[in-house]
């Protein structure tokens, strides 16, 4: 069981933050370019089956998922609190299945950005858990 105090700590292990920085550095140009070129038109929403099958909930918009996952991570250089990472986890795993069917009229690669956010989360030790009962035992 993870200590509650530890959960809310914003200080990450040196190794973890180093590997996160490494990923961010490697993908910096793509992330920066994509975030600045996105015109927030939300046309990508129409091509997202998760958006269409969840009563058109705006938080399922692919652009929203990108801006609030990798966008936030990039702006704060990976130094987010665990609570914020948990929110990101919901966005990039529960609200996106990475089916790669999203269509961006400008041609941004939304799946690449979400995959990058997933990579960073995995480095942080946050990933998709399929068995809630098993999780509580840890």
């Amino acid at each position, binding site marked *: 069981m993870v200590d509650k105090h530890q959960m809310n700590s914003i200080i990450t292990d040196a190794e973890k933050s180093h590997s996160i920085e490494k990923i961010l550095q490697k993908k910096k140009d793509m992330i920066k370019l994509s975030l600045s070129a996105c015109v927030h038109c939300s046309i990508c929403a129409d091509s997202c089956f998760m958006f269409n099958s969840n009563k058109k909930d705006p*938080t399922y918009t692919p652009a929203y998922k990108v801006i609030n996952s990798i966008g936030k991570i990039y702006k704060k250089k990976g130094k987010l609190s665990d609570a914020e990472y948990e929110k990101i986890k919901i966005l990039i795993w529960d609200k996106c299945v990475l089916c790669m069917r999203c269509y961006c009229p400008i041609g941004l690669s939304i799946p690449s950005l979400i995959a990058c956010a997933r990579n960073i989360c995995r480095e942080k030790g946050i990933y998709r858990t399929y068995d809630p009962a098993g999780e509580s035992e840890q």
Partner: protein
Amino acid sequence: MNFAFTDFYAFLRGPGFVISVLVFAAGFIYRSAVMIRATRKIRKQSFNLENYKWNGHVQTKGPLFHRIIFIFKNKIRNTIFGTNPVIGIISLIFHILLFITPVFLSAHNIIADLTIGLSLPALPEQLTDIFTILLLSMGGFFLSRRIFIPRVRIISTSRDYMILLFVMAPFFSGFLAYHQFFNYRAVIFTHMVIGEIAIMIIPFTSLAHMPFILFSRFYIDSEHNITAGRRTW
């Protein structure tokens, strides 16, 4: 006052415009360089692509017209024209008008002819006037979409409203100047200053989608490419 007016006007007409175009070109080149740095060459495939080609979805029989329609429908199925044709057509017309209205405007071409002796063919004034009204109404449509549709509102920031303002302001001031509403001098100055700022900020704001789209549709490989791309993310 008169001297200052002509001085400033001459600056905006000549060096001011050149500076704005140079800033735009520099930004365009910088963005392109970043785009090339961000992508990598596609690795050579070790398998023969021909073996994996599946032509089952392509209609090969029937009249040519039907086949063309079929291919076209398949091509656009998952794009903006397939999922939301109204927005697709409106934004397509918006972007075409955004380009042709200022470039083929007779007043702009007269200035170009007087300054450097070269000009492009000009559209009739009544037509460009209609285009401007259309552009302004489409700008209003985009603004209302941003305000009233939840999925657009949730990702909108002040930056998006500013960009829309910067895109629409030169057309609005140009419209006022053409019809000589209000103080002509003040309006034409505003028109020229905002227009030149708008040209300069293109590569540095979300208007960077203008150079970006050239790369993403022709150069970086993806499903919706127009030509086969050579690079990938």
